[in-house]
């Protein structure tokens, strides 16, 4: 089994339990073993507007915790994945900053070397597990017409190295086809979910959410698929509120990719946290699955 340090971040382990449940449940079936990283903290990305150096320090600290165990990192949140990757990129190119951060980390007996590789759900499934193995593992194809949402932080900025293409990401589509679904590109695919301004401009944030959901609903998709706890929170838990704000009736099921993966692998719904989704995922299952 390939081992990865499971970097949880903040939102997934404190609120978005369905993502964590479904990842812990599905990945061992695909030869991936997740090792917990006790003592890990926030990646710092939510604080970037307040102090960028704090972001850098917190990210380096988390990478160092995984490196101490000689593990590559699996960060299933797009925001965390960006923070950790950017931290590695900056410290690789800025020796004096690296020394400065490491002198602070030394007090906790940690050192950030930059040797661990950082993975997200999408490249872990697409590039590490691979579509062939995935295809063999599928027991119940998920026959749904789905829209995908990657999350801005997962696809940009390509300069620092991102797991998917910045303007035409297709890895989730390839995975979903392997699971038996029919993903279709749509004009709003790269639009933001609104989460980064939820903390201080909630109405504007939810307007973004609502506009994207409305577009997806109008185009006749069965469901929306996400790979980031922030995006999922906006599209799933806040769907009703977003509908109220844009004065529309929104009713579009929103799944984590790992939940659809679990259904395709034949895993029990409850183990995948489907009872925790707020959007109408369960009504859909009865009809379609």
């Amino acid at each position, binding site marked *: 089994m390939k081992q990865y340090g499971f970097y949880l971040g903040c939102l997934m*382990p404190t*609120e978005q339990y369905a993502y964590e449940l479904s990842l812990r449940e599905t990945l061992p079936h695909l030869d991936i073993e997740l090792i917990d990283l006790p003592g890990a*903290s926030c990646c710092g990305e939510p604080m970037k507007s307040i102090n960028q150096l*704090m972001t850098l320090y917190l990210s380096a600290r988390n990478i160092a915790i995984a490196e101490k165990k000689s593990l590559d990192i699996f960060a299933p949140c797009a925001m965390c994945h960006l923070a950790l990757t950017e931290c590695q990129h900056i410290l690789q190119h800025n020796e004096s900053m690296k020394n400065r951060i490491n002198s602070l980390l030394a007090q906790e007996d940690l050192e950030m070397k930059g040797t661990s590789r950082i993975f997200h759900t999408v490249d872990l499934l697409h590039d590490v597990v691979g579509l062939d193995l995935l295809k063999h593992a599928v027991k119940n194809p998920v026959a749904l017409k789905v829209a995908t949402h990657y999350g801005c932080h997962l696809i940009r900025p390509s300069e620092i190295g991102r797991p998917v293409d910045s303007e035409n990401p297709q890895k989730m589509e390839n995975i979903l086809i392997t699971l038996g679904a029919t993903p279709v590109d749509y004009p709003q695919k790269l639009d933001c979910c609104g989460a980064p301004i939820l903390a201080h401009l909630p109405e504007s944030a939810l307007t*973004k959410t609502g506009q994207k959901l409305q577009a997806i609903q109008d185009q006749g998709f069965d469901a929306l698929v996400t790979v980031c706890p922030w995006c999922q929170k906006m599209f799933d838990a806040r769907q009703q509120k977003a509908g109220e704000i844009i004065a529309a009736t929104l009713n579009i099921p929103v799944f984590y990719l790992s939940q659809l993966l679990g259904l395709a692998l034949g895993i029990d719904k409850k183990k995948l946290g489907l009872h925790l989704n707020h959007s109408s995922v369960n009504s859909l299952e009865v009809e379609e699955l």
Partner: protein
Amino acid sequence: MGIKDLTTMGESQVDIKNEIRQRMDKLVEELPDFCFQCGKCTSGCEAYKLLELEPHRIVALLKRGLIDEMINSDVIWTCMSCFKCRERCPQRVAPVDILFSLKNLSVLQGKQIPGKFTGMLQSILSSGLIQGIQEVTTCDNRTVTRDDLGLPSLITPDSGSFQVSKIAIEKI
């Protein structure tokens, strides 16, 4: 940096201010010269239609040295950090990073931190995460947390060692 400094600006932070100032000066000197105001950043900006953020205008204002004016404006807080401007700029100017620096400087100068940032920061400094473990509702209206779902208990930074981190953050 400590929460006290961030929220009350109780102590002077000459070093950090100088550092961010230097970063800003560097940005003023170098980056905007490359910008030829093509507007590609603004045409794709997620915050443009909804909140009237115009990244190319931010770069133009920076070029004219109007940093204080921007720091005092709410518009810098409308950026959704989607990174489209950085990705698509033909001259690699990255308005999103200029906006991050402007926001950092605004916080350092003691301007009001908007929304829930202060709460998240306090939570990071006390428990390492932006929020504590939340109760969530299931589709059949039960309230559950990690334990009820059989998830392993969350091991956040232990307060002893994270104390060191706090001091480290303060030094930053």
